């Protein structure tokens, strides 16, 4: 497969602290690759090393065939970067910002098409400081994608946005990929990683704790199987006594039941509910999510 990024044994230490401790992964061209993990796990540091903005302490890194340490400037002609929080000149108008950043690159992208896609047309004469958070984010995304880069690096692209704006940003990222861009993004919204990413690397304390497609990560590290429902009358003692139930707990009206065979336990449960006239509502199987996995991995890290 044609690789956009290859990282081997990457390390970064500051004076007395190792921020990245031997990370290896590769990203295929056209892939949306997610880096998730708690704050301080080394996500941003890794990203900045790939972008050539920070020097690595050890390891090999190749981005589009360039070594970011040596050819940072040539590399940055071909990548687009969006920071966690970008600030450009406050009184700069949207159209001026687009023209200014376009002048920094040799390659010219489809400016009109980008404005259309991002819906920036209505704000062309608005100064940066007068844009709302979501529109600032759209503009900085436009500034990153303006020169039709081969790779887009997005550091927490939807942090601080309302749910609608976040969905809009996701659609845009998918559109960029459809145009052939490779996307590397960090996030701590598991939903974002699940919905958007082809593969996800989970960072913990400067190392990769897990790396796979979101689906396989969930099934591989699946939390104990469990079903949940709400019922005012259900008695835990009765449920716990049902065959093969591992444990059950409740929080207000919500009840969780853990068992190896959920289908089997459901039949018993509904039989008991029928006998004892319990009302069972909002019944469902918990399939597990990256969120659970994330919390599990983080907790493992703390107890380890």
């Amino acid at each position, binding site marked *: 497969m044609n690789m956009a990024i290859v990282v081997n044994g990457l390390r970064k230490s500051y004076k007395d602290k190792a921020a990245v401790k031997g990370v290896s992964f590769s990203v295929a061209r056209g892939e949306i690759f997610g880096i998730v993990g708690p704050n301080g796990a080394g996500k941003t540091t890794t990203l900045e090393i790939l972008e050539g903005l920070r020097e690595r302490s050890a390891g090999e890194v190749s981005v589009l065939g360039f070594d970011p340490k040596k050819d940072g400037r040539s590399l940055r002609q071909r990548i687009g970067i969006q*920071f966690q929080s970008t*600030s450009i*000149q406050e*009184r*700069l108008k949207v159209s001026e910002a687009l023209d*200014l950043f376009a*002048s920094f*690159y*040799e390659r010219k992208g489809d400016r009109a098409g980008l404005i259309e896609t991002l819906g920036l047309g209505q704000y062309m004469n608005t100064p940066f400081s007068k844009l709302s958070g979501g529109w600032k984010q759209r503009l900085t995304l436009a*500034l990153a994608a303006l020169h039709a880069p081969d790779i887009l690096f997005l550091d927490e692209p939807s942090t601080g946005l309302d749910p609608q704006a976040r969905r809009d940003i996701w659609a845009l990222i998918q559109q960029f990929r459809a145009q052939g861009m490779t996307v590397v993004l960090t996030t701590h919204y598991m939903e974002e990683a699940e919905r958007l990413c082809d593969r996800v690397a989970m960072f913990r304390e400067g190392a990769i704790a897990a790396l796979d497609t979101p689906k396989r990560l969930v099934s591989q590290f699946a939390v104990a199987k469990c079903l949940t429902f709400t019922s005012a009358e259900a008695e835990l003692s009765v449920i716990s006594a049902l065959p093969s139930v591992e444990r059950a707990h409740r929080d207000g009206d919500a009840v969780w039941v853990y068992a190896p065979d959920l289908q089997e336990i459901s039949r018993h449960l509904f039989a008991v509910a029928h006998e004892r006239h319990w009302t069972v509502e909002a019944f469902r199987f918990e399939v597990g999510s990256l969120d659970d996995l994330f919390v599990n991995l983080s907790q493992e890290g703390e107890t380890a």
Partner: protein
Amino acid sequence: MNALLRLASVETKLFFREKQAVFWTFLFPVLMIWLFGAMFGNQKIEGFSYSDAYIPSWVAVQLLTTSLFTLGTTLTGYRESGVLRRFQATPLRPWVVLVAHIAYGLIVFIMSAAVVFIFGTLAFHLNAPKHLTSTILAMALSVCALFPFGLLLTSLARNTRTAAAVSSLVLNLMLFLSGATFPLAFMPKFLQGVARALPLYYVIDLLRQTWNVSPITSHMTDVAVLAGLCVVSSVLAARFFRWSSEV
């Protein structure tokens, strides 16, 4: 090249969007010239009339304030707010940022010098420069010396507050000790010695002399000092250029 022109023109535009800054940048020297004019009246200063002695020196002060406050503050602010960091994420080179800012400073300076010149001519019968080419060359050399000097000083400051403090200190020191406001002849010998250690002294001397007395070729000491300052501060400003305020 395109990036350089864009950046310089964007910065100039942004300067004029800051209405208050524009107002004070252009009004301050006029106010000072008017105040000092009221103080000195018809006295001769080192053989020159008030306007012939002081208007060139206010042009020099204007150069220094543009360098420290207009340029230095803008760039330090950009460093602090992350604008430079965003530039770092592009192929832009540090010297392009510096030169673009110097170009924008030059435009602001030329406009404020014109304001001072017109005001001096109308209100204080300022004589036109005797050696016009020399005066223009002297100004160009002074720009090349003081602008990188200001950018260097403010880039060493950690944030805008420190930069403003350093700038005020440097400006006040030079304002009072380099002959810009008080004639050096009034000062004790050792302060006159201090004056010769300040860059502004040479700028003022060169501008006054070429404006009123003799061509630039008769003032090679001033020229040498300013050329030296230009080279040293340009090299250091590029060397110590930082994209972000974190260490």
